[in-house]
């Protein structure tokens, strides 16, 4: 599904990722943990194609596509979804219009038939019901005046509507209350695990109480230094990152 091989990336000529390698199987939920400055968020940004980062060498293969050769929107159309930590507001554009335009744009890029409005609205209503989001939410302007929890609800709705192959949740739990974390966890449970893998980037174990990962990796200074199962996250919660700092 995703194979990252010897990825080296830098920002302002400072190397951040150093021969980073990781493989994720279809449907796998993997957590990447580590102290501040270990390169966790850089990994997310580099995979998404953030222009501030320079990829020096290595590869990141999502199914048959080499992500690093694609523009950010092409990566999204091929199935990469990065949930924003601070999503921008778009005054005048309703949530439902935004989601439909995003879906149709990706379908167009893949050369697929566009989902018609009635089918889209049925899916949207069903997904919102599952996430316990009132329908009125779909008619509000994107993120305008949204609380932190509402912004995350929209990110999750986007994730479910776009049906990505690889989801990256980068510190999505920062600043969230338990209710909002539960919404994120519920949305991840609703993903089609036969086709979607998830990378959870987090500093704390808390989110992993709600989303059980199949594998946990610890990052330090741009590399993976330890890998294990869910028990590794619990161990880190007890010992802290002292050994890895």
């Amino acid at each position, binding site marked *: 599904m995703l194979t990252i091989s010897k990825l080296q990336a830098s920002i302002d000529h400072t190397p951040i990722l150093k021969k980073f390698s990781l493989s994720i199987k279809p449907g796998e939920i993997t957590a990447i943990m580590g102290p501040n400055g270990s390169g966790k968020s850089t990994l997310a940004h580099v995979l998404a194609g953030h222009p501030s980062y320079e990829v020096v060498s290595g590869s990141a293969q999502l199914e048959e596509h080499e992500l690093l050769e694609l523009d950010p929107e092409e990566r999204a159309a091929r199935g990469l979804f990065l949930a924003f930590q601070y999503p921008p507001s778009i005054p005048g554009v309703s949530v439902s*219009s935004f989601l439909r335009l995003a879906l149709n744009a990706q379908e167009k890029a893949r050369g697929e038939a566009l989902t018609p409005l*009635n089918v889209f*609205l049925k899916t949207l*209503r069903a997904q919102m019901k599952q996430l316990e989001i009132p329908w009125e939410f779909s008619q509000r302007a994107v993120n305008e005046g949204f609380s932190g929890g509402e912004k995350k609800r929209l990110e999750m709705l986007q994730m479910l509507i776009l049906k990505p192959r690889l989801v990256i949740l980068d510190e999505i739990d920062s600043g969230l209350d338990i209710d909002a974390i539960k919404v994120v966890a519920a949305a991840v449970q609703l993903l089609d695990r036969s086709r979607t893998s998830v990378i959870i980037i987090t500093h704390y174990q808390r989110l992993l109480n709600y989303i059980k990962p199949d594998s946990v990796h610890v990052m330090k200074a741009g590399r993976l230094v330890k890998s294990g199962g869910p028990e590794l996250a619990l161990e880190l919660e007890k010992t802290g990152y002292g050994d890895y700092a």
Partner: protein
Amino acid sequence: MVGLMSTPSLKTRVKKALTAIQPLLGLHGGGIELVNITTDNVVELRFDGACIGCAAANYTLEHGLKEMLMVQIEEIEDVVAVNDEPVTHQAPGILFS
């Protein structure tokens, strides 16, 4: 008393929604009326006034009216216009070189 609490008919709700949309079309001297709702819940509308023969009428339907109605009224499967008049003019406010 039960009758007072029940949901108004689809036709009533469509008409009410159209009444709310009318002023938007009225800004361009146009209008819209409900012609029919088919058994499979396709709403058939007719553009009136300056919308008749307007090059932007179909765009207004596809990128505005349709979504406005369908997000409000869940049962609607599609919204179509029955007008078959030829295009005679552009929408007001559009400049051509």
